């Protein structure tokens, strides 16, 4: 699977796979910023640094975080669309010392 098959142009965020519930920010995103791109619209609920992930769907606690079409971990709390998705609300499924 190739994440990009044409130049991304001046994209703010990158949708990698239709199955994903996150996108990768290619620029720093401001709180409240509305992103209209690739026929989709997302409002950032908080500031998100470049390279970090933004939720493109509401994710329930315990649900998988899907990137490149694959599961990369799970939500440790519910995550609203437009939120910063990172270590404060995501944990890997493997080699995790999280208590059950």
């Amino acid at each position, binding site marked *: *699977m*190739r*994440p*990009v*098959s*044409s*130049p*991304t*142009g*001046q*994209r703010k965020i*990158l949708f*990698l796979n239709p199955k994903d519930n996150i996108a*990768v*920010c*290619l620029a720093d995103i401001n709180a409240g910023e509305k992103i209209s791109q690739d026929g989709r619209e997302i409002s950032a609920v908080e500031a998100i*640094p*470049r*390279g*970090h*992930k933004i939720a493109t769907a509401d994710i329930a606690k315990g649900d998988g*975080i899907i*990137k*490149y079409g*694959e*599961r*990369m*971990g799970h939500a440790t709390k519910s995550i609203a669309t437009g939120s910063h*998705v*990172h*270590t404060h609300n*995501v*944990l*890997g*499924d*493997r*080699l*995790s*010392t999280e208590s059950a």
Partner: protein
Amino acid sequence: MSNSTSPLLGYPRPDGRWGFRNHILILPLHQALSTAARDIADATPGAVAISHDWSGEIEKDFERISKTFAGFAGNPNIFTTVVLTIGTEVEAGIIERAKKFSPTPLVEVKLSDAGSMFKLVTSALEKAGELAEKAAAESRVPAPWSSVVLGLECGGSDAYSGITANPALGVASDRLVEFGATSILAETMEILGAEHLLAARALDPKVGAQIIEVVARYERSINYEGIDIRGAQPSRGNIEGGLSTLEEKSLGAAKKAGNAPFTGVLEYADRPTAPGLYFMDTPGHDIEQLTGFAAADVNITVFTTGRGTPTGSAVIPTIKVATNSEMGLVLTDLIDINAGTISDGTQTLEEVGQIIFDEIVRVANGHLTKAEHGKHHEFNLSRLYGSTL
């Protein structure tokens, strides 16, 4: 893209392997000879040296250490290896093993014969000088695509690694494998969470099971040690860059191996026996991985980096590919190719993949990488146990 005639030019070795460099390696088999080895290489154009921390101990990892030295001494990019020894039986055993491993000529200079460090250095300098002249006089000849044994490496990953440099390297690796070359993915920790995807691409179900088992073996060892790996993987730098979990890092790291099917799984420092794509069980440590590659016949490496890791090998030309323009355009004495253009939106993955492919050919044919210019001749022995006896 048709399977064009290979434009490669290399040095054929008697056993069918090919070199893309014709180095004289000055290899100390005792830590205390490391400085002498460096001095000899510095004074001999065409010679390279390594240094290390082993001083002849028969430790638990001796088998791994011996295999690494023997393989490294016989890397196909070497014309002749000048081995510096104290003169022990343990060293003699490693030299015997190296001779069985490959036909690369070995010249031993023993401290016990020389009688003093000064005489050892003088003798080795003279031999290295003569050999370097012979090596320089040899000409490259046309080499087939199968001459390439490509090492795939990443270090200092960021959130761009998996969307820029790694998949672009995957495009280049896929093309080489399609043409009949060999390509090796490594770093067991960094496929954890992506191993099922790699296993599904195995040519033989047994190979798929091996890929799963190698990762499971690693996972068991970590659980056994009771280590919370999350403190180191993803690293602090990875997390600052936007990577949240080990699986996320692995899914991005595995993209270096493109989409080609897997031919086999290799233990650390074991050489591939036929062309194709392989996975080698190595530590995540960049230099230990590169050392294992060198001991396993790898003759060129592409190393993607998000933070500009300045690592190289004495015997393998190492092409650095930046994952982001912010770093790639600044560290110009470390980075050969900037793949950040993919996320900048100015080049496609396929375009950068082609650039990496072309650079592999150019470097194989003699163009020096930034790591070679910078004399990044790092070497690290991989140990599974502590170094205490």
